[in-house]
């Protein structure tokens, strides 16, 4: 597998690039600038970064005021705090008035590891997707992160962008072009489609490789824009392959699996399985062991694919 590259560093360095291009780009953090990597921006643009201290709700409100005054604020903290802790601030101060605020969070999911349940954001996508008008994007590697951050800066409107703590293997080439609202076909196949986001895209590709050796060719989609979800790509996958597996480092409720199931139920029902955290909190532990215990490995995806392939008959 390709070596891992930090998505957080990709974020931090892209902010600096944007800061040089556009004086209206400003950054907010809540005492986590070395973890979210907004400190790169702080070093080059000390007047355009606002560290709000450990006060995330206030940070979101300040970002809203900056956006209402023509700035392009990127506000960052851990994924447990936005949208969780600040749900009402994101809802009323950002999403309802459709302000141009970019909420970019890091340390999502259970791969945050040893810090345990309080720090493992496994419900953030459900919360973010519940808000009308909030665009939700989950990049799958550092290359995609750079493209997504650039696109968010250039696109009017509120965004929630979810990054993780560990580095991720590169799944895209340098010539990759991100298109908002469009899934990317990562590999072709005709027996089933694995639709994945974020950390699970590399895992899905690993599973697809193993399945191919067993004679099961799978399509893999990277559904990096979770909202608005690419309905056409989902329906196409259902028509072409007749079975779907979703994979996400998030609760089964309210994330990718729910979005895909909603589209399929209405437009093209086929057998579906969900690789996601079941209705439970996780615990402290090394990320790789947590992924195993909570069912988020390539082997889990392979099992789910075999199940849906069998069900379609």
């Amino acid at each position, binding site marked *: 597998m390709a070596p891992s590259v930090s998505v957080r560093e990709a974020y931090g360095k892209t902010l600096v690039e944007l800061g040089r291009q556009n004086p209206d780009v400003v950054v907010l953090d809540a005492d986590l600038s070395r973890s979210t990597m907004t400190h790169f921006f702080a070093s080059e643009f000390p007047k355009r970064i606002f560290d709000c*201290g450990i006060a995330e709700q206030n940070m979101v409100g300040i970002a809203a005021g900056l956006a209402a005054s023509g700035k392009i604020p990127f506000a960052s903290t851990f994924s447990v705090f936005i949208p969780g802790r600040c749900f009402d601030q994101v809802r009323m*101060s950002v999403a309802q008035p459709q302000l141009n605020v970019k909420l970019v969070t890091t340390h999502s999911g259970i791969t945050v590891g040893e810090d345990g349940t309080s720090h493992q954001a496994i419900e953030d996508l459900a919360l973010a997707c519940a808000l009308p008008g909030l665009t939700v994007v989950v990049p799958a590697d550092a290359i995609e992160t750079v493209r997504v951050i650039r696109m968010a800066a250039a696109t009017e409107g509120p965004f929630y962008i979810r990054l993780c703590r560990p580095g991720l293997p590169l799944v895209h080439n340098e010539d990759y072009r991100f298109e908002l609202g469009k899934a990317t076909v990562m590999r072709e196949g005709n027996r089933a489609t694995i639709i994945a986001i974020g950390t699970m895209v590399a895992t899905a590709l690993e599973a697809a490789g193993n399945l191919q050796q067993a004679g099961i060719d799978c399509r893999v989609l990277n559904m990096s824009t979770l909202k608005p979800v690419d309905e056409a790509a989902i329906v196409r996958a259902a028509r072409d392959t007749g079975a779907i597996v979703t994979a996400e480092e998030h609760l089964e409720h309210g994330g990718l699996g729910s979005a895909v199931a909603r589209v399929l139920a209405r437009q093209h029902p086929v057998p579906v399985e969900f690789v996601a955290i079941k209705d439970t909190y996780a615990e402290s532990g090394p990320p790789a062991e947590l992924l195993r215990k909570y069912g988020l490995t390539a082997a889990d995806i392979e099992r789910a694919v075999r199940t849906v392939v069998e069900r379609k008959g």
Partner: protein
Amino acid sequence: MTCFTGELLSSAVMGGIIDEQKPMMQQPGEIKALSLAEMQAIARKLRRHIVTMIGSVGSGHPGGSLSAVEIVSTLYFRVLRHNPRDPQWPDRDRFILSKGHAAPMLYATLAECGYFPVEELSTLRKLNSRLQGHTDHMLTPGIEMTAGSLGQGLSFSTGVALAGRLDSKPYQVYVLLGDGECDEGQVWEAAMAAAHFKLDNLVAIVDRNGLQIDGWTCDVMGLEPFNSKWSSFGWHVIEADGHDFTRLEEAFSQAKTIKGQPTVIIARTTKGKGVSFMENNADFHGKAPTPEQVEIALKELE
């Protein structure tokens, strides 16, 4: 629909007092100050609008709307640089209503300034109206912030003030909070931040009417010592009678001279001010008057 407000606009311009502290070019349509006598009349008119609007739809928040009439009319008719013909004028002074339930008071003020027709006030809270139950930035000309869930306006205003400073804009940011609203922790997060960032272009006004839904603020959740809370957070504190135009204007003038820190004006007010049976009555926080009560109230406000 005729636009009655054009008439008021021109009388405001004709009768205006030139403020020597504002050397910048006047924009066409920019509101100029009303005289003291005109202010008394406009306050009565705003109160009549508030009672009529809320009474007509049968829901809304009269108490906290009536208590803030002088504060907000002093701002819109004496202090703010703003232009109803150009609500997005980049250099305008900002007024942000954090206590969004006082929306009827702000709608009435904006309509009398000419942001939209006064006749539109009767659409308050009705289907397809631009005048939502709580303020909506997306719908209503002149509304700077979507509000209603308390405690968020001071953070928002801090962002607006930071942006003004970054761009070296001349505008001032005024934000009105309720005293009960100050129970919200986010208010104090923002108070800390605005002082930390030394935002002397930011003025908060607290409508200190002493009442919240469940009763007196001292019984529900004590705020005192309120002034020293703000000063210990790094704010310059001014106390004023929130129904006295002269005192309020003095407070706003003084706030402009304070450098290196934000200012808060603790405006002592009476909830339900101007309507005898609503004054100091928590029941009228969020209850509409009956048609009979509207009639009595309008007589009192003649």
